[in-house]
């Protein structure tokens, strides 16, 4: 079971991360276009379509990656207070009720849409003689299939959680909170101790805050508390 969903995770991570680099491409394509248009007076006709393709492919192809990271936004103000097993039951039911019809519909419809486009060799109509867009439309069924695959992995996770009562651990990946590391490892004015405490605890803090709970164990703080108590005693 575990190898099943970890394999799918790997596929999603890989496809998502590969497509993520399109943002760097997008940045440079547009910047070069600025240079061309304003300085060299040589605008490119297909740039509008190119931008859309880069952006559209970027976010569609990263859908599975985002799902694998559990980063799709959810209204979790009730959910977080449930026990893992109940969370899994709820998730499992909703994967079949909402996720499956939505995504399968998208893949089916996207396949027809792309097939039509390929058949007529569709070109963009934004400008006269626009670039071909059939491969861009093909992104829809492909991205849908990836999301569906990842959905199967999530269903496997739910089943495992129902069996064991614990959510299986996800693979490591970058998180927003990682910036704490980057920032603090260069800091000159924060004392060694609180820096270490924050850097080690950042992930746990993030996790706890997302669940609207406070880490009661105080693992992170042991050292800091001592120091604070000394501070408190002084005045």
């Amino acid at each position, binding site marked *: 079971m575990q190898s099943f969903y970890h394999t799918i995770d790997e596929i999603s991570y890989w496809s*998502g991360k590969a497509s993520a*680099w399109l*943002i760097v491409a*997008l*940045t440079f*394509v*547009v910047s070069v*276009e*600025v240079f061309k248009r304003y*300085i060299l*007076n040589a605008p490119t006709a297909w740039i509008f379509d190119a*931008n859309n393709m880069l952006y559209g492919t*970027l*976010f569609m192809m990263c859908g599975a990656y*985002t799902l694998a990271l559990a*980063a*799709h*936004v*959810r*209204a*979790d*103000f*009730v959910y*977080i207070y449930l026990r893992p097993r109940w*969370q899994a039951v*709820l998730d499992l039911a*909703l994967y079949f009720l*909402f*996720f*499956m*019809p*939505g*995504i399968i519909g998208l893949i089916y*419809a996207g396949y*027809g*849409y792309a097939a039509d486009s390929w058949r007529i060799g569709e070109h963009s109509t934004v400008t006269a003689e626009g670039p071909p867009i059939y491969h861009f*439309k093909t992104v*829809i069924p492909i991205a849908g299939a990836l999301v569906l695959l990842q959905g199967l992995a999530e269903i496997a996770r739910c089943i495992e959680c129902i069996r064991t009562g614990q959510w299986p651990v996800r693979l490591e*990946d970058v998180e927003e*909170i990682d*910036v*704490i590391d*980057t*920032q603090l490892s*260069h*800091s000159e*004015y*924060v004392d060694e101790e609180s820096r270490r405490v*924050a850097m080690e*605890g*950042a992930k746990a*803090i*993030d996790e706890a*805050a997302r669940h*609207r709970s*406070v880490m009661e164990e105080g693992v992170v703080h042991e050292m*800091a*508390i001592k120091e*604070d*108590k000394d501070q408190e005693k002084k005045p």
Partner: protein
Amino acid sequence: MSDPALGLTMLGLIVIAIMMGFPTAFTLMGLGMIFGYIAFWAPGQHWWQNHIFDLVVQRTYGVMTNDTLLWIPLFVFMGYIMERAALVDRMFHAVQLAFRRVPASLAVTTMLVSAFWGIASGIVGAVVVLMGVISFRPMLKAGYDVKLASGVITAGGTLGILIPPSVMIIVYAAVAGQSIVKLYAAAMLPGFFLTGLYLVYILGWAIWNPKIAPRLADDQYRVTVPDWLRQLERGKNRSIVPGLIAAAFRPALAKGAASYGLILQDIVALSVPLLLTVGTFGAAWWYVLIYNAPSAQVVSAPPPITAAAATVAAPEAPAAEAAIADQPPEELGAAVEETSAAAPVAADTKPEELSTETQARVEGVGEVPAHFFQWFWGLAALSALSLLYYFWRMDAEQFEILKELCASVVPLGVLTIVVLAVILFGICTATESAAVGALGALYLAVMARYLKECLWWSVGGAIVGIVLGWAHADFVELIVSASLGATFAGTLGPGLIHLRTSPELRQNVKEATFLTAKTTAMVCWLFVGSALFSAVFALHGGQSLIERWVLSMNLSPLGFQFIAQMIIFLLGWPLEWTEIIVIFCPIFIPLLPHFQIDPILFGTMVAVNLQAAFLSPPVAMSAFYLKGVAPKWVTLNQIFAGMMPYMLIVCLCLVFMYIWPGMTLWLPEFLYGK
């Protein structure tokens, strides 16, 4: 087949379904698919030929080609890169030194730095944790009130999602079909107004009751000054300027200086305030008198004051009219940029004075739009005087602070202002400025690590840019091409060389890229879901049912506005801003014309309103982030208590915005016409 009853069922189901905590994008997609299937069901039709399949794919493709949403990855990328490029810790230290004489200086600094850093990145959790580490402990050590300290961090940390360039506003623009540029212009003043209110509150409290924010001991902000700089202080004011300039010609004067290069470096740092001021005024001059002058007809529409004249005016008068129409934006640019430029310059001026001053200036400009030259030269003289005074009083310590500011705040500040100015004044298209902003952020990231190489490459790039742009021979275009060339070369040269050797650079770029992908996918998939859902909802007549129902209540515009904001405020407790704006705003937006509420004003108010939602106990995440890094004896309740006043201030700000819509709408109307 469509049935309003089904529409209502949908609405009820969506609320329940969202509460079940399933990823919202797929909840919406699934519900839309099921109900759409029912809506399009026709007897005798094959089940796979249902029109819902056309709808879903067209909606998806619509999101994929939405050129408003195209902004999201670019701005998010810019934010993530900046977040890694600029060291907050250093910034905090420098700003704190600059504000050391202000009451509650640590709190004021925290507010300013987190607002500023939030402008750049706009990520709440990280800002709060980081400020919690950098400033919470020093504040508590200095004996600050716990409530003051925690309130400042949590309120400051959420400002980033309001002040442009913010992703929230892009998302609203995409939902409401409004121009992002207009919304950015609209959110500008309320954003700074809210920051100003926060600062007034902090300062007022600190002055009223100095015990909550004791002054730091003198050794806390002593600046270390090298001996040779001390020797250069001249006269009663101990100004360092004459001595330093003299030392440039006679290096023997600065005996202890390590090298001549150091003196030159210091002179460059000394000229930064001067350059910033001159640059601001020069850009203002160029924008009004050169950039806009030849294209008088292109100016979208004259502002209300000249609107009457426009209908009467003969075609031969467009130039004069454009001159009238264009002064206000320029003045505002000057005022806005001035404030930020003035922050390092007039380091001793109290921040609230600065912001109110801006406010006053802006208002004054609104009344007399025709006096460009008076205003320009008046402001120029004023800045020249304050600069002169600043240099006059610059002793070695002040100079060290200036150097710190130049190294930490100025690069990021200049980039942010340039990006905003380029967007607001319509110099490039929006997408282009976002991309150039992202490139600029990359440049800063490279520069922060490899300063020398980056500068050499930039010089090379600038030369190439000038050569390539030479054909046009226009001075301003040459500057633009040179700076573009410099940015390209300075980013790509050292960046690519060190990409192989520096794991840190590699990791930063990787992290920023992957996080951008994650955030973009999260927001845009939500759009895919909601686009389908809202189409099906309208198909069932649900939307018109709600409209009829609201209209039958005979609400006054004030009543409607109040109820709408109240609902959004309440929704802000359990939900994230993405869901509120993408799912619930579309319900209100079609009703706005009935009540003659400007969708831009409404959107800005929603953005401000959500600030309060982020500060509301017991669900506000920022409190939990702060609690995570706070010492153990700080309780969650203390943090919530510290946040409460800021919630009230946000409500006050909303009231101001309602009573005084000009604050929001003035800037977009002057920049782009009605």
